[in-house]
């Protein structure tokens, strides 16, 4: 893989370098892309990251396991609930703590609601990248309803800290349960509306079908996970392959497509929202009574000396936590394996040959969250 640091020579007068970002409307935060262009065609692309590096991993080494609890939801703020609860589950597994049934079910409901809200935001910003402003506002309107529900139980709109080692901080109210059921009904209707507004739109189809095809061999080479992988036809989902929590008790499909272009990545995510709602409805139906915190929680959270790995399926893919403990209350090292990091690194092979306008839609379609890449 030839590297990009080279100055265009004198004969090379009809190509130029374009620096896209870190402040650019469609790099989704503070990503910088260094593009080598000939006209509007991209010859090579190099993503430059680190503009949102906040030292989460160093912070983990400076505080104990409990104090690190607010951090995971800020690593990926769009699926904060999944990250935060995933971290709790990782520690629970490491110290062998049982979680009450009710808490497990509520965790699943909140995770899936969070997944829908994350996909909704992606949907809106993706359309915004393509120049369609209105769907963005529709999505935010629906997203607000989910945020209201999660706000009701956790107290925050974005960076949740709802899970605790051994359960949850609050029990859910009847308002939440009714609201969630109502939301699912209403949202199915909205999905049909989006289908009419966006999926059937001829401009949208022209802009996405056949654009940004990721060849299947890239999946193994780069370790692509999440909706991007499923758009390549591989039905891999951590929730199904190595079920964590109680995901093995639910019936849900793993939507896949085969063309692996922007349009397929879009369809996979739309289908995933549908599946998430299925899980939510099953969980609502089965939700048992009982406590939401484990009875015996050790005062000292200190996993035995050793190394632990725990993975969850975030809205963007495989999120893994590699925890090294030296037996004390302070982690020796926590490494976060984040999905977008791997997904974004494919850009240098996917982008060359496309047009500048496609760059924007391809970047939008892989759904990156910069602080999750930079940590």
């Amino acid at each position, binding site marked *: 893989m030839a590297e990009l640091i080279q100055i265009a020579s004198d004969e090379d007068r009809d190509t130029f370098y374009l620096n896209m970002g870190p402040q650019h409307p469609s790099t989704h*935060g503070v990503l910088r892309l260094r593009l080598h262009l000939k006209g509007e065609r991209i010859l090579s692309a190099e993503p430059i990251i680190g503009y949102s590096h906040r030292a989460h991993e160093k912070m983990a080494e400076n505080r104990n396991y409990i104090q690190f609890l607010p951090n995971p939801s800020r690593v990926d703020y769009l699926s904060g609930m999944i990250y935060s609860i995933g971290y709790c589950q990782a520690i629970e597994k490491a110290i062998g703590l049982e979680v009450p049934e009710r808490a497990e079910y509520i965790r699943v409901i909140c995770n899936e609601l969070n997944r829908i809200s994350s996909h909704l935001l992606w949907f809106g910003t993706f359309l915004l990248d393509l120049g369609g402003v209105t769907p963005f506002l529709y999505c*935010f309107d629906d997203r607000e309803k989910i945020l209201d529900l999660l706000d009701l139980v956790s107290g925050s709109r974005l960076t949740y800290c709802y899970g605790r080692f051994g359960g949850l901080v609050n029990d859910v109210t009847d308002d939440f349960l009714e609201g969630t059921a109502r939301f699912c009904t209403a949202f199915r209707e909205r999905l049909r509306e989006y289908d009419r507004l966006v999926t059937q739109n001829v401009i949208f189809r022209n802009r996405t079908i056949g654009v940004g095809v990721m060849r299947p061999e890239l999946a193994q080479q780069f370790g692509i996970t999440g909706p991007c992988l499923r758009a390549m036809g591989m039905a891999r989902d951590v929730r199904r392959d190595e079920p964590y929590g109680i995901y093995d008790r639910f019936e849900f499909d793993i939507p896949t497509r085969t063309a692996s272009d922007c349009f397929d990545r879009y369809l996979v995510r739309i289908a995933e929202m549908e599946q998430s709602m299925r899980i939510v409805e099953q969980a609502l139906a089965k939700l048992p009574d009982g406590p939401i915190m484990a009875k015996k929680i050790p005062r000292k959270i200190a996993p035995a000396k050793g190394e632990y790995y725990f993975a969850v399926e975030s809205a963007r893919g495989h999120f893994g936590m590699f925890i090294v403990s030296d037996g004390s209350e302070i982690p020796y090292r926590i490494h976060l394996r984040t999905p977008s990091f791997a997904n974004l690194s494919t850009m240098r092979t996917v982008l060359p040959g496309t047009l500048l306008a496609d760059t924007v839609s391809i970047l939008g379609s892989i759904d990156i969250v910069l602080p999750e890449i930079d940590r």
Partner: protein
Amino acid sequence: MKETPPPPANATTEELLTQLGPLVHLDVLENLLNQARARSLWPLTFGLACCAIEMMAAGASRFDMDRFGSGVFRPSARQADVMILAGTISRKMGPVVKALWDQMPSPKWAIAMGGCTIDGGPFKYPGQYAIVEGADKIIPVDVYIPGCPPRPEALINGLLMLEQKIKAGKKFHV
């Protein structure tokens, strides 16, 4: 009106001018412009981290910053009036933020949204190497909005406070 003492006989022209004050008073015009500026704050499309999502939410349907004339997000710094610093400023990003601030035409304002831009917020700890602890270390900030992240209502409140500040005719950052 306050009586001004007569200038000394051997005063230079420059001293005279300083003592007499401006010959032409532009206050009226300036006040009029301030009324317009306060009501038309176009933010820079610029998100750094988590708070950017709440900034987007503030512009979207339920909260709708456009009601106050602030819904026109300008992607180019040359056309923006207010920089909403939404999220953690990493050290790598610091110079970029400064450059963007310099590119904005005056009069311009900055809103520090969220704990990170106020003083480092949750990411502040002894030995932190990655972030700029507070936006005011690099650019002058007019309004601080605490929270992690602040709710969209808080951002709108911050914008209205900035409006009050501009209407009151405080001096601008050039």
